[in-house]
């Protein structure tokens, strides 16, 4: 398939006039709120919350570590919704949502892995261990990397959107496995925050034991688990729309 064909084929369903407007008011407002939220969250985590008696300051990483996973969960959830809606309506905007969800979700999952790793070095005495939960999360990230590979391996745009939707729905199984694995595998050393930790959990702590922990966690959950992923998703969707718009313009030029 020649380049010109490929571009014009990927373009037809795009509304050329879309997304040439300046930054929407709501998004601008959301951006300001999110930046303030990140600052407030960092203040709560680094200053307001009391220092953990056993673990010291490194425990403060947790305020970002756990909320980041829920940020990834939300973004990958957006991919599932995008996938289902694309298969039902065949409107391209849902595919844009799905691919944006994958990229943002991967970013949050990597934040989750890196902060966890830095925390594990002093607490578990190792950067990485083949614990069930760590393994399943690494596989979750690889699954979404496979999503990107699959996407790039398909030339026909309609087929690419369709297959991506199917794979994005299936891939969510790995997210659910990562979420529930510490409940069904008793040999994990990863602590649980909600409910009782597994027997062998290392580096666990009580929400009530240190003052300010619950409040700091609550604020950061709101910021990293909701505000930040939603804002970034919106920007990523706009970026994708701009890219499609540029493709459409290019195709028009080639048609002349």
């Amino acid at each position, binding site marked *: 398939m020649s380049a010109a064909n490929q571009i014009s084929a990927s373009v037809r369903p795009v509304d050329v006039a879309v997304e040439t407007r300046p930054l929407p008011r709501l998004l601008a407002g959301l951006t300001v709120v999110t930046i303030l939220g990140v600052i407030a969250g960092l203040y709560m985590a680094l200053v307001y919350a009391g220092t953990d008696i056993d673990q010291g300051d490194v425990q403060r990483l947790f305020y970002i570590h756990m909320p980041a996973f829920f940020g990834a969960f939300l973004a990958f959830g957006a991919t599932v919704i995008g996938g289902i809606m694309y298969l039902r309506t065949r409107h391209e905007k849902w595919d844009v949502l799905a691919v944006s969800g994958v990229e943002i979700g991967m970013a949050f999952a990597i934040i989750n892995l890196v902060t966890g790793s830095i925390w594990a070095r002093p607490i578990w005495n190792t950067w990485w261990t083949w614990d069930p939960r760590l393994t399943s999360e690494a596989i979750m990230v690889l699954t979404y990397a496979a999503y990107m590979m699959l996407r790039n391996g398909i030339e026909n745009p309609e087929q690419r959107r*369709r297959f991506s939707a199917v794979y994005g729905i*299936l*891939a969510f199984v*790995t997210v659910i496995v990562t979420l529930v694995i510490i409940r069904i595998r008793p040999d994990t050393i990863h602590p649980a925050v909600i409910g009782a930790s597994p027997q062998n959990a290392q580096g666990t702590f009580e929400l009530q034991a240190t003052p300010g922990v619950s409040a700091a966690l609550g604020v950061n959950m709101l910021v990293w688990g909701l505000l930040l992923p939603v804002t970034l998703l919106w920007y990523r969707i706009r970026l994708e729309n701009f890219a499609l718009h540029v493709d459409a313009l290019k195709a028009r030029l080639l048609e002349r």
Partner: protein
Amino acid sequence: MKTPFLHSVASIVRKDLLVELRSRELITSMALFALLSILIFSFALELDRIAREEAIAGVLWVTVVFASVLGLNRSMAMERDQGNLDAMLLAPIDRSAIFAGKLAGNLVFSLVVGLALLPLMTVLYNRSLLEGWLLVVLLLGATGFSTVGTLLATMTVQTRARESLLPIVMLPIALPVLLAAVRASTSILTGSPFEDWIAWPQILLVLDVIYLVLCFLLFEFVIEE
């Protein structure tokens, strides 16, 4: 007038088995790969008696899964290259019947390889693998990854990268099945008490049901053309 579901499934399976009986293309390459794989593992891991007890289930499952990837790729590429996929799409049968038929065929090939490995590994690794529950776990595990494998192979044969893409997209998705299957097999082979490991076959069964439902629903979207 549509051909009844079971009848069309049976025809597709019969066709796959007949082609295989005449060409022996799939089974030969899968079996040869499986044989090589367990020999390589046995050298690479330098297994002594105790390490063998621990690792044997892992070796069995890795070999079965990779052999199946090989088979899935061939089985789907054959449908596509010889235009049979289009013929099946034109035929007055349910899309889900095509999926069920291909799944049953692929499952049979995986099971044949798995079953052939059990006596072979019993001899080579000097540890009896012929246990009733292991057969149950083999059936459940093979069902799980054949289900996702059939769906994903149908997708990957239509892409540019073809053969190389299937293991990359299939292994992470099939991993929950593999984890549960390896855990169950290891416990069975090391002789743990029944109550300790019966949860794993149960988890496998639940995973199988989830994957079957999901893949049946999603299959019609990967073959529309």
